[in-house]
């Protein structure tokens, strides 16, 4: 890929653990990835998978044992390329004694911005991140979420071409997460490249055009999100109300599952070739009302769990089905079916 914004080739990083008899521990093993300019790239993996190590290698906070990496066609050690990048570390710490405005002024000077540039750009950036009102408050008085916003502000201060975000949603409330998502999409629309690591898969699903999954320091999978998610429809979920009993009985033979939800409302699962349009037509003809039709697909979380498990590391993050994952949905559906209670969590 000629216009890759970020490229790593066989990147390896060994740490030495133990004091008396240090032995090597491979944190990253021959990682080769390419991120095209303008992509929102999700770098996913469980804790300890090598996500932060990769970002540190790209930022030259640690040096590779072997392999190399480039940003915008320049080696990562090139100081000049840092004028064109922004970086938000995981759980960032900034100087307690400074205010948000002073911190950005300090960083602005390091970017070589003129005083006039700093005067206009700093308030605008702080306002954009929703902390303009607190710009003269010492950072020691900031909450974790506000510090995260300051971290994002310093990362976008120089209007970077490539933005590296390490767990950008960490510590943010739902409103903050929405704002960050909006910021990422806005930057993407401006043609920026965004590389972000996360284990919050919903964010990756909502934002990323490409993802890579790492586990145990190795690349487990990479590609366009649609390929990875195996977007082939695995079935249909049709929600109807007011279905007459005889019509419901006819449907049962074609459905893979019928659940009763809240009185006269039914969830009818069909196989991939189950023709939901025909079913809906038939039932509405019998007097029922159509509520919704949803395709059933594997979520990114399921892909994540499966790929990580395939690396022999399923126990760390993948063993417990999370809310919203396929196994969790199945269990919720079973509970709903048994009790005739609430609708299971929606599938896409």
């Amino acid at each position, binding site marked *: 890929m000629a216009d890759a914004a970020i490229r790593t080739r066989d990147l390896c990083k060994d*740490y030495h653990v133990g004091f008396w008899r240090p032995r090597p521990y491979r944190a990253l093993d021959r990682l080769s990835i390419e991120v095209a300019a303008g992509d929102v790239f999700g770098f996913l993996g469980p804790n300890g998978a090598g996500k932060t190590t990769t970002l*540190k290698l790209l*930022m*030259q*906070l*640690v*040096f590779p044992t072997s392999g190399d990496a480039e940003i915008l066609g320049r080696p990562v050690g090139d*100081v*000049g390329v*840092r*004028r064109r*990048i*922004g*970086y*938000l*570390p995981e759980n*960032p*710490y*900034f*100087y307690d*004694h*400074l205010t948000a405005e*002073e911190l950005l002024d*300090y*960083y602005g*000077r*390091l*970017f*070589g911005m003129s005083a006039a540039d700093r005067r206009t750009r700093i308030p605008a950036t702080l306002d954009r991140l929703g902390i303009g009102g607190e710009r003269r408050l010492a950072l020691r008085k900031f909450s974790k979420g506000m510090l995260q916003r300051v*971290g994002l502000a*310093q*990362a976008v201060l120089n209007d970077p071409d490539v933005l*590296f975000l390490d767990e950008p949603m960490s510590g943010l409330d739902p409103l903050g997460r929405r704002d960050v998502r909006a910021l990422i999409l806005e930057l993407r629309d401006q043609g920026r490249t965004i590389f972000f690591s996360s284990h919050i898969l919903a964010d990756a699903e909502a934002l990323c055009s490409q993802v890579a999954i790492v586990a145990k320091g190795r690349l487990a999978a990479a590609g366009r999100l649609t390929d990875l998610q195996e977007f082939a429809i695995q079935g249909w979920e049709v929600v109807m109300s007011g279905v007459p009993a005889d019509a419901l009985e006819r449907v049962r033979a074609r459905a893979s599952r019928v659940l009763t939800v809240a009185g006269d409302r039914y969830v009818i699962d069909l196989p991939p070739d189950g023709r939901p349009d025909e079913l809906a037509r038939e039932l509405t003809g019998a007097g029922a009302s159509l509520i919704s039709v949803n395709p059933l697909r594997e979520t990114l979380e399921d892909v994540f769990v499966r790929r990580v498990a395939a690396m022999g590391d399923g126990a760390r993050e993948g063993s417990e089905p999370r809310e919203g994952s396929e196994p969790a949905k199945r269990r919720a559906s079973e509970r709903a079916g048994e009790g005739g209670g609430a609708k299971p969590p929606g599938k896409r």
Partner: protein
Amino acid sequence: MTAIRSVAVAVFRESVRDRVFYNLVVFAVLLVAASILIGQLTAGQDVKIIKDLGLAATSLFGLFIAVFVGITLVSKEVERRSVYPLFAKPMRRAEFVLGKYAGLLLTLFANMVVMTAAIYAVLFFLSRGVPANIQAAWDAPAMDPALLKAIALIYLNLAVVTAVALFFSTYSSPMLSAVFTLGVYVAGQFSADLKHFDVIVDAPAAIAVAKACYYVLPDFAKFDVKLAVVHGIPVSGAYLASTAAYAAMYIAALLFGAVMIFSRRDFK
């Protein structure tokens, strides 16, 4: 240069916000209290004692700042991980180390300017009204400009101590850095004795080790002209220049080592 200047200003600002300059209040109180007390207890020696005390206190307070701020200059940023966003900016690690050093020198300079002014102010008040014939019998005038030579050498001494502290702080914890720096400072006071170790010891190996230490450790005794200045013994410009050159070479070697170590360091 922009990066070095920005980091230096940040260090100075942090020193101000962290109340490093509060030591000046203690210094001023100490000096004024001592001058009142000494003025009542001594006859004609008060100016000399105030000079002695003032220079010693300047050296001691400066040493505290150089060591205890110096050892945290780099290590605090690494421990708290504030270097992470910093090194994603267009700045070399060498510029960071040099900026940190320049910032602490600036802090020490501001500190010493105030202390020097305080010493001269106290000396002015003590000598006021003293008859000219008594003043003529003093080893040196109260407002002796030669005091500035002693203060300049104290400053150079502190610049070397700061470089030692910074060197250790690039790769060890603040606690270890403090131990190492104070160890070097104490050993450096007796550096001249190491040179003549063969006079008191007859073991060739021990003499070789002592000589090696003499050449490696800074000779802090070179910077101490307090006694000479207080007693009106002239300190030549050539001596000042050669000591400054010695300090510059030593500082350059330490900063080179600090930059080399820090530039290769992984921030895990």
